[in-house]
Structure formats: structure tokens, C-alpha cells
């Protein structure tokens, strides 16, 4: 079957081309769609299996990263999006897309309704930073996207990537539900392995179903081995690639189509 992925663009999103490429390399048919066009024709989503909100600087990170884009999505397409994720389909927010998702309350989606429970805010060092980090997927997480991922390296590229839950109870709930999908991990580098002071080293979370996922690092920036910073001195195999997250998603849709009950 053909898996269809919709990649949102517009208003300063800037990782849409490589996100589209990631889905294509993973075997999906990917389409870039401008937010205004989706607002004009929300039914476009009906034919889609996966929604991606890529990284970038929507509205320049003005006021707060992701905030204005999040509001526009929630006010204009809120019901459509809820329906989409409830119907067993997948969604991913990467970097700015993750910021959008938590600020509109599409994550962690504890009660199936939009409610902001966590945030992504200014890194403790108050800088935009582009560097590669080590990550570890939580084996106990229900996340579809990070299944079987284990350890991997990806770049972070943000100024507001520090994950903060509303309170200890919220954090415990995320942990208890298996919603903490991805953490910064100690790879023995010279810098602090947690790049920004994120609580519990959290780099990515999912909704209780595991189908909606957001993360700060950029898996779409590691689609070939030559993207890796040490490929000229280490053996970087295909199983190291960020591409695997996208393959997981495409395979999940294909499996679900074969076994409708699993949805």
C-alpha cells in the first residue's frame, strides 16, 4: 500500500524539504503543503496517514517559539487534527514542530484534548546551539516512532529546547504512561550530554497511544552516513541513521493496514 505523509510548510518552517525527503526515503509518498492551503482545504488530511510539522523558525520564534503557529493550528484546524490523531494516524513534530505541538497541547494529550502541560523554553545557556548529541530511546515507551531504536546520535539545533513539565505530577504521569520516548544520553563527549537543562534529560515525548511524537533533535538531518560529524574517521552504518524513525512510522501504517484490529 502507499503511505501518504503530509509535511506542513510556511511562515518560517525551514526543514520541510529534508523532512519530505526522509519520508520518501522511508517509502512513503510525501507532500509538502502550505499551512494556508491546509486551512483552506482541511479535507486534504483525510487522504493522509502521517502529519509532520517540521523544524524551522515559524514566525521567527517571536513571542515564544512555536506559539503563534500553534495558536493558528489550534484555532483553525483543532478539531480536524484531533480527529486525525484519534483515527489511528501518526503525527510527528520536530524541533519547532515539537514546540508547536506542546504549545497547542497536541502533546502530551493526556485527556485527548488540547491542554498545555509541558513546555520547551530557553536553553539554560540562553544560546542557539547546533551540535550532535547522543540519545537513547526508552524501551518501555509506547512510542511507535522510536521502537527498537536503542542508542543514536542526532544534531540539536535550537535556542528553546529545554523541556519543562508543569510540575512533578505531570512528569510522573509522563513517565508512568510510557510517554517519555527519547532522552539525551551520556556518550562520553567533552560537553554536558544534556545540552540545555531539559528535565529528566527528556528529548522527545509521545501521546499515550505512542502515535503522536515530538522531539527536539533532527532525525531528518541524518539520512546518509556523510551527515554524521565523524564519518571520515568512524564506521557509520546504515543502522545508525535518523532515517529509522521515519521507517518505523511507515512500517507501522503498513502493518496497521494489514491488521486493522491493531489500530
Amino acid at each position, binding site marked *: 500500500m502507499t503511505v501518504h505523509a503530509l509535511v506542513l510548510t510556511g511562515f518560517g518552517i525551514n526543514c520541510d524539504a*529534508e523532512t519530505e525527503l526522509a519520508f520518501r526515503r522511508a517509502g512513503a509518498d510525501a507532500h509538502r503543503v502550505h499551512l494556508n492551503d491546509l486551512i483552506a482545504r482541511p479535507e486534504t488530511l483525510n487522504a493522509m496517514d502521517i502529519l509532520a510539522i517540521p523544524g524551522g523558525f515559524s514566525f521567527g520564534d517571536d*513571542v515564544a517559539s512555536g506559539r503563534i503557529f500553534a495558536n493558528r493550528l489550534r484555532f483553525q484546524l483543532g478539531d480536524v487534527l484531533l480527529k486525525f490523531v484519534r483515527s489511528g494516524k501518526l503525527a510527528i513534530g520536530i524541533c519547532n514542530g515539537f514546540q508547536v505541538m506542546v504549545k497547542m497541547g497536541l502533546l502530551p494529550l493526556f485527556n485527548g484534548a488540547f491542554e498545555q502541560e509541558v*513546555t520547551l*523554553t530557553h536553553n539554560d545557556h*540562553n544560546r542557539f546551539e547546533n551540535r550532535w548529541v547522543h540519545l537513547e530511546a526508552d524501551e518501555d515507551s509506547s512510542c511507535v516512532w522510536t521502537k527498537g531504536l536503542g542508542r543514536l546520535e542526532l544534531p540539536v539545533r535550537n535556542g528553546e529546547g529545554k523541556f519543562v513539565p508543569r510540575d512533578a505530577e505531570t512528569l510522573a504521569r509522563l513517565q508512568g504512561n510510557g510517554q517519555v520516548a527519547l532522552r539525551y544520553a551520556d556518550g562520553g563527549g567533552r560537553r554536558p550530554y544534556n545540552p540545555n537543562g531539559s528535565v529528566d534529560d527528556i528529548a522527545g515525548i509521545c501521546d499515550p497511544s505512542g502515535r503522536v511524537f515530538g522531539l527536539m533533535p533532527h532525525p531528518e538531518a541524518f539520512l546518509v552516513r*556523510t551527515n554524521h560529524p565523524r564519518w*571520515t574517521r568512524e564506521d557509520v552504518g546504515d543502522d545508525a541513521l535518523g532515517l529509522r524513525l521515519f521507517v518505523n512510522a511507515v512500517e507501522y501504517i503498513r502493518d496497521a493496514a494489514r491488521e486493522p484490529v491493531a489500530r
Partner: protein
Amino acid sequence: MPDAVVAGNASVHRVEVGVKAGTCDAAGENVKSRAMEDLGIALDDVRVIDVYTILAQLSAEELERVRVELFTDSIVQESSASGALAEDFHYLIEVGYRPGVTDNVGRSSAEGIADVLGRPLSEGEAVFKSAQYLLRGAVDAETCKEIAEGLLSNNLIQQSAVVSEAEFSASDGSPLLELPVVTERSDATVRQVDLTVSDDALEALSRDGMLALDLGEMQAIRDYYASGEVREKRAALGLPENPMDIEIEILAQTWSEHCKHKIFAARILYTDEQGNTRLIDGLFKNYVKATTDRVAERVDWLVSVFDDNAGIVRFDDDWNFALKAETHNSPSALDPYGGAITGIVGVNRDILGAGMGCRCIFNTDVFCFAPPDFDGEVPERLFHPRRVLRGVHQGVMDGGNQSGIPDVNGAFVFHDRFLGKPLVFCGTGGLIPAKVNGKPSEVKAAEPGHLIVMVGGRIGKDGIHGATFSSEELNEGSPATAVQIGDPITQKKVADFLMEARDARLFDCVTDNGAGGLSSSVGEMARDSGGCRVDLEKCPVKYAGLAPWEIFLSEAQERMTLAVSTGQIGELLALADRHAVEATVVGEFTDSGRLECFYEGKRIAALEMEFLHEGVPTMELKAKLDPPSTTTESQPPVLSGADLTDDLKAVLGSYNVCSKETFVQMYDHEVLGQSVLKQFQGVNEDGPGDAAVIRPVPDSDRGIAIACGICPKYSDLDAYSMMAAAIDEAVRNLVCVGAKMGTIAGLDNFCWPDPVESKKTPDGAHKLAQLVRCCEALHEVCVAYDIPLISGKDSMKNDYKMGGTKISIPPTVLFTAAAVLEDVNKSVSMDVKAPGDVVYVLGDTADELGGSEYLALRGQLGSTAPTVDAPSARDRYERLSAAIDQGLVVSCHDCSDGGLGAALAESAFAGGFGMDLDLTSLGVEDAVVALFSESQSRLVVTIQPEKVAKFEGAMGGIAVYRLGIVTESPVFKAACPRDCRIESPIGELKEAWQAPLRW
């Protein structure tokens, strides 16, 4: 706080947002540490409150919704729309913009409010962003003022206020800053300018009007308007004999040094050191263009050179590649952040406007500053180099990151005389399908009948006189309006729109609006059609009150100009609307032979295209090379038995050599997913890479390598050497990663101190002679290396003059080079890879310490700058790239600033291994020369032991020196001539290299 103040129909509301107690205030912490680092002021605590002043009609319920839904992140923030948040501080500083300055956060906030309310804000309603800094510590009002002006605001574009807690609590809550609404109005009348005046009065007209035209040019304009034929034609068009103000402004802009490059076109009578005199009829024609013409006979990949906004070359059968670099020096001197961000988004537009519109795929940035530890008096209107560095870096960072264009390569260069003007070079590369709709994508033309469409931002008073301002030295009269703040998100939307419009072929010609605004973009495009008419009242403006000439000349940012046929205009405007991009028909291209402007139906300008573009008189200049001043420096004795470890550490820690990782890490260098070789490489990803490599077309293994060379430190010794070294440095960097000779394209960006002899520049003839020498080197080396110059730019007035102080920059050329690689998988990084690998240096080391970092640390210049032997270097590079192609080389590093010692140490510590070296085999008597001479055309390579024989064979007996091996033990050891030595753990060398600019 008093009730909302009413302004017109709208009310003023204020939402204040701060970080919740117990949450990290990262921005506040940042201000605290900068106050200490940059100003030496200790503070106990700083907190930041974001203030959004909303000028709009909002009900109480609406204001509350806006506060909660838009402005407040309830997880980490608290906010108030009904009173001040500030408490528990000693002093409060509030900083906001002045009227008319681009306020990106304010603009986005207005959009955000519209989303929350479900209705757009009305005309005249707006949001203004300001920030409050709450300081605690043992400071007084005077110190806080220093923090306000020295750290938090630039008086030219921002307003600030300082109050103590007592003053704050005693106040009635009135805003500390004025509402920055533009109230200043120019009247819309167009004035005649009487040119039938004395020469002195003509010069005064030019000076007072910021026209930057010299007497000869003013006379040429006067004579044109005095001719009977012109008068007759003007009468027929309903125009007076005298020129209109807008016409004079258009001529001044079009004829500016910035736009016409008059010095590079001048006839120069050149006298060399030996007293031989010859006439050079145009430096551009005889050296720059001549280079490309010669090389074009030998390379087959040039697509479009010199004619467009950027040079275009072939990438593969399906794609072309465009390259351009620009400078934004004068604006960056006055406002480092604004100048730099407009610089980077400005050069992006050159690429967007090249051919039928290229997609930007990378940025480069090269900055020249005075050393950050400068401790002298900072001259009036200038900033301390630390502040310039931080501001420029932040501007380029925000501009590039927000535009989604990776910053892949650059440099920081330090020299005392960049105090007078910082140099901010911004470069961009672009990619375009070779054909769009079956037609070559580099071909475009505006035809009569095509509509003139302005796309993007609106016009304001910002950026008026930018072209003429940058054609003069920085002086007391330099206008504040020349300073702007870029808006990358508006431009990103324009770029997305433009790519879609291009692929649908909805326009026939495109160019960017840079210096000179519409006057320049429309004036240039109208050369194709043979004329144009612009209806100025149709141009969208940010606010009322612009004079017609201001509308036409404004350099307000983020605008492109298109030529669109009447059949496609509907579709084009609809596409713009879908992308939330403003596009407006402002006139049409004609074949009248005239550039004509109308305002409310009345013709106010009619300039003959020929006079406009060809009427500027050719300058006649004199150049005379002074003999080099004889050095009075004592020659240091040749050392014996010395430990030079500390010297190596000092050289590694010099500002020109040391790591710039702190700054580079803040650039997004991986967006678009093309990255192959990054700026920092090695086991810990912190060794200094040479050229960047990207793979711009995902399904192809072909790549682009990008590098730069810049060597102003040699200029005072020999401008020829400076240029040759810059080219060679860029080429070496490319060769290091695997580029081949014959695939390299070059860009020359000249930044010179005023080279025209005059009362204010008595040494102009020598500076012009330096320019001639530099051009000779450019031609000779590029021809020898087969490098066509595909584009370039010159900035010729890089001087500071105020009162009795004059500072002229050292003559500087940035040479940007790029090469297409056949297979990025063969790229080589600079870090050593494994113990046992054999270390070589390619190329001879000579006593060329002049201008070196080693001597600079001793406050000396030396006498002999390094020279380039281009034919032998070319042979070396060809052999090396063949060896790389065969997979014989595991690491390769350029040997440049800091000499062989620095290059070897960098390769070692980047790889995390030591080296055991013997430098006595170099054939050099002096250890200082062996380690620190900056002889050109040298490269450090490491070779696996089993490939040594093959590698040496491939080098074929040219100058290759085997120096030693890579060791497991992390110690860098080098035996040097006359029993001198170096021995240090690599960690210490790396620390010496990283510490100075670890900010």
C-alpha cells in the same frame, strides 16, 4: 497603572511577561554575565520582563484572552495586563525601539493577536515590543546607564530609560518610553533643484544632500539639464528645465561608487616603485574581467558571469549553482546587529534574484574586527570591538538561522585598524534547475508591457541614502536612516513564494531590492525593455508621510521586483496571497527610452536611460607606489637549544588562529540536510575544518566545496602578496577536502580605504597603487590556477574620519572560492586518524615571517611577506588531489595563520593523538621559521604506513617532507633546527587554542 490611554480610535494596552519565581531566567543570567565580561560591572541578579504595548481597540475580555493565549507560557511564565510585574529590584532599565525601526516581534504579535481575536488588526493598530531589565546589586544610576547604553541598547535605533525602585514605585505607572509611532512626515511636494550655481554651491548641494557626487559628476548633471535638446524634450513631457529632486536622487544613487564601481572603471595613471609609468584603462576590464575571459577558454562550466546579481556556474546537467558575497560594513559600524542581519538577508536576495531565482543553499560569513581586548579610547560614534563582534555575530546568526540557510564557512580576522570600520562579508550560494519550463534558467528579460511588481516588505524611511552613505567615509553626518533591521521571516515567505512562482514561470524577470531600492532594481531591469514608468503612490508604505523620492529610493528590506506579463498577473497575485506575501503592481516596463516616475498621475521624473546609465564621467586617477618603509625592527637572533612550546601555545592562542567554536556553534550549519564536512571536525568535533563540503542534490554524490581566503595582515608589506596569499589560502582549503584544479570558481570582494587622492586622503595615490598591485596578483594567480572570477564587489571608502581622528582599514580582499566535487564520499577531513600514520608537509618553508602571527605577538610586522609560486603550487595541488581521489590520504590540513607549528598541532589534537616529529629535514636553519613562517602553498597530510610508497610515488619528487608519525601517546613532540624543541600534551595545546574566545 492608569487606565488605558487613548490614541486616536485605539487604546494603549500593556502586557508584561516574566519568568515565574523559581524558574531559570536564562536571558537575565546572560545579561548578568555580559555586564561582567564586557563592562566589568558585577550584578547580583538580573531578570527580564517582556513588554508588549498594544495599540488597538480591545475589550477587557479580549485583552485577557490575548494575554493568556498568546503572550503567556503558563508552565514557566507569569504575566499581567493590569499593572507592572516589576518588583524587588534596585534599578530597572527599559529598552524599546525608536519610531519606524523594524520591530519583528511587534509585527508577529499583531498577527498572533489577530489569530486569538479571529479578526485582523485595523489600519493604524500595532504592537510594540520592549524589554525591562530588573537589576539587583551594588550599582547606581550612572552604572545602570552604562549598562543600558553599553550593552542593552543602541541609541541610534532604540530608546531606553533607567529608574530606581523608589522612582518606579513613586511613579503613576506612566510608560517609561514613548510610544514609537512614526509621526515625522515629509511633505509630498516635489521640488526643483537649481543647478545653475557656482562650483562651490554644486559641491555643497552634493554634500548637504548626502548625494556623494563629486564636482565633475555634478557638473555633468548640470550640463545635461542645460542642453537645449534636453530642455525641449522635458518641456514636451511637462517637466521644468531644472531637475526635480527625485531625478537628482536617482542619478546620485545610480552613479554612486556603491552601484557604479567608478574607481574600478577609472583611467589610472600608474607609477610603480621603479618610477615606470603606464595608463590602465579600467581595473575591472583589464584585470578582473580579463581573468575570466582568459580562463573561460579553458573551462566549460561558466553559465553567467558579471551580468547578474550573482555568478552562475554548472553543477551538473540538471542544476546550476550561483555564488555571491557582499559587504555591509558601514551599517554594521553604526549598528552591529542591524547592519549584519541586513547584510546576510541582503545577500540572500542577490541569490534569490540571480537568473530566474535561485534557492539559497548556504551562507558564508567573514568578519574583520579590532582585537576584542582593545583597551584604548573608542572614537566617537564607534563601538568597542567586543560589542561589534557580539552584535555582528548575533545578526548573522539570527538572519541565517531564521531563514533556514546553513552557515557553512567563514572566518574571524583581527587587526587594530578594523576599529575604524568593521568588515562584514556575507556570502550565499544558490541552486537552480538548469532549465525552467524548458528555457535556460539564467536567461531573463523585462519586456515593454510587462508589469512591475514589488513583492515582500513595505517601504519606510529606513535605509534612505544607503547607497550614497556607503560611498563615503564614516563621518559626523552619516545618517541614522541608513541603519535597518532585517526581517528574515518576511523574506523566507517571499523566498518560498518566489520558488513556486518560478517553477510555474509566472514572471519573466526578477531582481532584488538592495542598495538604491526601487530606483536601482527597476532602473536596472528597465535597461532590457528600454524604459519604465512607476506610479509611486501605488507602492505600499509602512506609514504615511513619505516624499515621492523617498518611496523610490528607500532601501527598506525584504523586497524583490518582478516583471510579469499581463496574462499572468492574476495567477501571480493569487499565489502571493496564498503565501501571505504582499505583491503590488507599481508600474510597467516601456520602450520609451526613459525612466519615468509619476505621483498621483503627475509626471515627476523623466530620465533618459542612456544618460542615467552611461552619463557618469569616467574618473581620471593617479596611482603611485611608495617604496616599502625600511624596517627599524631588530632581527631576532637565530635560536639554539630553545624550548618553543610556549611560543606554539601563544601562536595557537592568538586571535587570528584560536578557535571560534563558541560563535560557529550558534549558527545552524546543518539545516537542509546537505552537510558532509562541517566547520569543526575530529574525534570531539572541535578541530578547525578547512573547506565546507555539502551535497546539495540528495540523490547525487556530487558536492560543492566552499572556502575563503583573507590576509589583510600582509597588506602593509605588499598588497600583491596579500592578494596572492588570499587566493592561495582559499584554494588550499578546497584542495584539502579533495577539490581539483580547473573546477574552482572565485569571488573577489575588495574592501579598501579611500584610494582617491584629496585633501582628506593625501596618501590616496599610494592606496590606489596598492589596489593596482592587488589586481595584478588577482589576475596572475587566478589565470595560473584557472579560476574564473564569476562575481565580486568592491567597497572603497572604508575609513573613519571624525574631528581629528582618521582610521583607514588595511587594504583587504576576501577571496571566496567554490568547487564542484564529483564524489563527496571521497572528502578528507583535517584530523589525524590513527597512530602510526605518517605525517608529511607538502611545499617549501621559507623565511617569510613578515606579517606572521608569531611576529604580531611581539608587536612586529617584519619585512618579507610570503609569496606564491603559482605554477609549482598548482603542480603540487594537482598531485595531491589525484592522491586524495585514489584514497591515499587520510587527513589533510591547510597550513596558514600560525605556520606549520599551528597546522600540525591542530591536526594532532583534532584527532586525539600525539605526533613525534623531526622538523630539521625541512632544510630551514631557524626553528622559528620552521614552525611559524607563513609560507604559502603548504599542506599537512597523514598517510597510512601501507600507502606511503604509493603516496610518495604519486608526489613524483616534488617538495614533500616526511616529518614523523602520529602517536598513540597524546603528546605533541617536535625536534626543530639547532636543537630547539617542542613537547606538550595535546590537551594543553588544545586548551591554549580554545581558551581565548571561549565566551
